[in-house]
């Protein structure tokens, strides 16, 4: 049998305390307590320390899950990748502490715009990614634009009395309906659109043109003619 007291947990506990995580209330070294510690560590390792957003590792899992779901259900899903424009200049001019404040403010703004079912992640220094399940093709551009606007409206206080405005560029791609693609491929397609947004002058959103569904409205109308007649 496992004797939990013989495990070296000091570093784990220190990490959790430092992150301000709540330690489990169960009897120390009991099974429930250990499970609680592991859950807290999992939670910690799936989040970005600076913003509290989902981190890259965890986001890749979410993305892979979404690829599977879309392949199975055929529902549309949108992946957006975005990047703070000229972020290096912010760091160079105002310092890294200011840069961190900007990243935190942008993260907060992104989180406010999306639905609870969407996953917002910080995937790199000033790079973010959002996966939006069940996002119909017609809404993609609207969502991306709303995100862009919300960030542009921010006045980020980087020192008392000193505020900063930043913009973001966004790229987006829908998961190919019915095709069990890979999250890597999906990410690449969204990235390509982000490069396009940057090249076209930044502070804008570019979305990959959605391929029309395989089945046209006319075909659908004819398909359901019989079932509709029946239920009438």
């Amino acid at each position: 049998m496992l004797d939990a007291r013989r495990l070296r947990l000091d570093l784990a506990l220190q990490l959790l305390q430092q992150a301000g995580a709540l330690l489990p209330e169960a009897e120390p070294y009991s099974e429930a307590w250990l499970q609680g510690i592991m859950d807290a560590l999992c939670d910690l390792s799936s989040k970005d320390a600076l913003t509290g957003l989902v981190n890259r590792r965890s986001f890749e899992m979410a993305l892979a899950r979404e690829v599977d779901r879309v392949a199975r259900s055929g529902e549309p899903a949108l992946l957006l990748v975005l990047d703070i424009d000229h972020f290096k200049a912010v760091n160079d001019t105002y310092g890294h502490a200011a840069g961190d404040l900007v990243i935190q403010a942008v993260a907060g703004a992104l989180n406010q715009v999306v639905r609870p079912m969407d996953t917002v992640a910080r995937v790199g220094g000033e790079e973010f990614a959002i996966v939006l399940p069940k996002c119909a093709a017609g809404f993609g551009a609207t969502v991306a634009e709303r995100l862009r606007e919300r960030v542009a409206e921010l006045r980020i206080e980087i020192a008392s009395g000193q505020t900063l405005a930043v913009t973001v560029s966004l790229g987006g791609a829908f998961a190919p309906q019915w095709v069990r693609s890979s999250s890597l491929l999906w990410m690449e397609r969204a990235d390509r659109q982000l490069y396009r947004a940057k090249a076209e002058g930044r502070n804008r959103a570019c979305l990959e043109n959605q391929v029309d569904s395989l089945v046209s409205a006319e075909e659908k109308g004819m398909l359901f003619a019989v079932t509709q007649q029946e239920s009438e």
Partner: protein
Amino acid sequence: MSTTPDPAASSPASPLGAARPAPKTGSRAGARTLAVTSGKGGVGKTFVTANLAAALALRGQRVLVLDADLGLANLDVVLNLHPKLTLHDVFTEKATLDQAILPAPGGFSVLLAGSGMVEYSRLTPEVRDKLLHIVEMVRPRFDWILFDTGAGISDVVLFSISMAADVLVVATPEPTSLTDAYATIKVLATQQDRREVGLLVNQANRVGEGKLICGQLQQVLQRFVGARPGQSFKLELLGEVKSDQTVRQAVLKRQLVLEHYPGSDAAQAIKALANKLLG
């Protein structure tokens, strides 16, 4: 009654990839091949495949069901099997084909995808070659190979269908299922140049609904998919399984209706399907 070949009694174990002459893949070279697909998931594709395999086995056929849903396989769930060795192990050469072909309840054999196949859910040339090789190896030893494909119309699904001579599309009367079945058939007609596809309507609400749906699909296909002059596209209704309590019971208990409810309407419908296929 069981006609499942004993894996140990067949050809000597040879790891996949070992050089050996590929058998001819002409129609007389071995098993008849049938892909079971659906477009939409959750319409009973695996249920139909497993029970069809049992019905063919009842008719004295040696049947292998190949779990071609590499990403989200659930044949093992439907059959309540807990395989130790799977297609994954054959791919990675941890097991021979003979070790991974397992007897299933219902008197047929299965080659399960198993978990860990997610890495193969993209169709790379490697995956393609391995699957083709496996099919070539097993063809001489069976009368039928049924491919239980994944949901959707991914490249892996289309590829596994392309390995089969015949296709059975499973659809339910649900609009979403009909749309996806239609999309699948359309892709098969336009990309694989198929002129004939079989249809099974599952979860039919009443007798005759299958015929109605098949006619409707055929009409839309005729109009929008069309065929080159002198050729025609034929969607043949191969079966209709009515939605009933027995099926739900069997699925929940992870049993084959052919084995546990042989007298049920569903079992009769699947037997009729097997008879049609055997001609």
